[in-house]
């Protein structure tokens, strides 16, 4: 984990409030899917966390959704601007030895799964993705997923594209679900909570969010409650947890 300055190579709007940033990162060791960077922003004192969404050589991609002044500031950075980041933070996902793997992305939560899909496909592990969103224009990265997944299933809550219904409902009906050895899910908390309750037999790993102080294990600000009723640090032990190990 290091602090670095990285120039913005591209900032593109993907949908309403959804932006894709490519940054050039120098002097960085390997990064893992699930890891994130802490971005210094104007307007707020603390950094903001964004997950690695993709990688091309030294360049890293981040996808963000504007939800407050921090992400709004990040959404307006211009090409050439230097961003101040710390990372990579958190534990990367342990890439499983065999597939098939199923990736479940809700909303902007699909972003970190793209990088996971890429790494899986590089290792020759079969993976299918369900990319879900409330509505059509909030679906992100579908074309990119198609490049690295065996199959990409799209679903929207309002049926404006792909399957109609909540991601969890769709997942239940898919034959890929039963085939998968392991599932990775990233999305809003209600989605993760629902996934817990649809009786999947396989391990499900969830990419969690939480309000973070430092992202580096210094402050214990990022607690998430474990099954053992203790708090775990999302930034240090996570952000990826076995879904059965945490309370949602």
């Amino acid at each position, binding site marked *: 984990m290091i602090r670095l300055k990285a120039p913005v190579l591209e900032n593109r709007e993907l949908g309403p409030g959804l932006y894709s940033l490519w940054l050039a990162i120098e002097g960085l060791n390997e990064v893992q899917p699930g890891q994130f960077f802490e971005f210094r922003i104007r307007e707020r004192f*603390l950094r903001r966390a964004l997950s690695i969404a993709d990688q091309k050589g030294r360049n890293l991609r981040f996808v963000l959704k504007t939800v407050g002044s921090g992400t709004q500031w990040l959404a307006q950075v211009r090409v050439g601007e230097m961003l101040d980041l710390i990372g990579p933070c958190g534990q990367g996902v342990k890439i499983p030895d065999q597939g098939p793997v199923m990736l479940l992305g809700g909303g902007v939560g699909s972003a970190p799964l793209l990088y996971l899909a890429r790494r899986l496909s590089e290792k020759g592990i079969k993976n299918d993705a369900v990319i879900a969103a409330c509505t059509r224009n909030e679906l992100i990265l579908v074309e990119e997923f198609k490049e690295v997944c065996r199959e990409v299933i799209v679903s929207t809550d309002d049926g404006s594209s792909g399957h109609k219904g909540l991601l969890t409902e769709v997942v239940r009906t898919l034959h890929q679900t039963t085939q998968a050895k392991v599932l990775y899910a990233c999305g809003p908390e209600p989605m993760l909570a629902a996934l817990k309750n649809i009786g999947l037999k396989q391990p499900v790993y969830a990419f969690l969010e*939480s309000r973070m*102080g430092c992202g580096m294990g210094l402050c214990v600000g990022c607690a998430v409650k474990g099954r053992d009723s203790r708090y775990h640090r999302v930034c240090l032990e996570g952000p990826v947890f076995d879904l059965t190990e945490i309370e949602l």
Partner: protein
Amino acid sequence: MNVKLGKTTFRNPLVLASGTFGYGLTFPEVIEKVGALVTKGITVEERIGNPPPRIWDSAETVVNSVGLENVGLQRFQTEILPMIPTSTPVYVNLAGVDLGDFKSILQPLGQDQRIAGFELNLSCPNVKEGGAALGQSSRKVSEVTALARSLTVKPIWVKLTSNFCDVREISKAAADAGADAVVLVNTLNALVIDVEKRKPFLGAGSGGLSGPAVKPHVLYIVREISRIIDIPVIASGGVVSGLDVFEYLLAGARLVQLGSINLVDPGAALRILEELKDLFRREGVNSPTEIIGRLEDR
């Protein structure tokens, strides 16, 4: 950059504040350059801490309600102490509900070689009992300080609150009871509201305010109190630059703690130290001692 506090010499006036650098087990390259490190608050029993969310921020403030999450005395002794940094003096921040708690911790730890000294946290706004409730009473501050004094010969810093009390009186009580220094001040009580839910935003209901916005207020308190007590004052509040440290020294602080800024940049202390050195050069200052308390009147 040396500065003396009682019999102890610190390599510079920068101290990493409690709760913002864990137990000092990471970033050794930072820790070895500062004057001292204060650990996260330790309690007799392990504490799991407050429910999330635990942190909120604005441009110039942080509100936290971590709530003294810590491993407890026993695991601190067995798991943390053996790994504690030796490159820099480590002060252990202690929290408790009553005299018994402080006794339980100081009896085993009071003479431990690995510990440079203690910071009595009589000011945490994030716990239901103890914390600030102790620190708002001169009598209780006096009792806890005197007890600690009787259980250790190491330096005792008493960290105080300015909320709902006259911190001038409380500081005097701590000094009279044998404290080696007072630390001014812990976070200000703060409430953040989630308007949609019509509930407090933080899981604990409320938290403590810190960050650059509190600096002018804490500077005022530091100057006031350094003028009325005979023991050294350690400042804590809103430092983000070498200039801020310089200001606290002028206002009468002997050591200056860095808190929230560590969360933004764990290497901040190194930058701040360089800024302070530059400022010393520019202002022709050779040692912190030359400027401590040297703020002139208007």
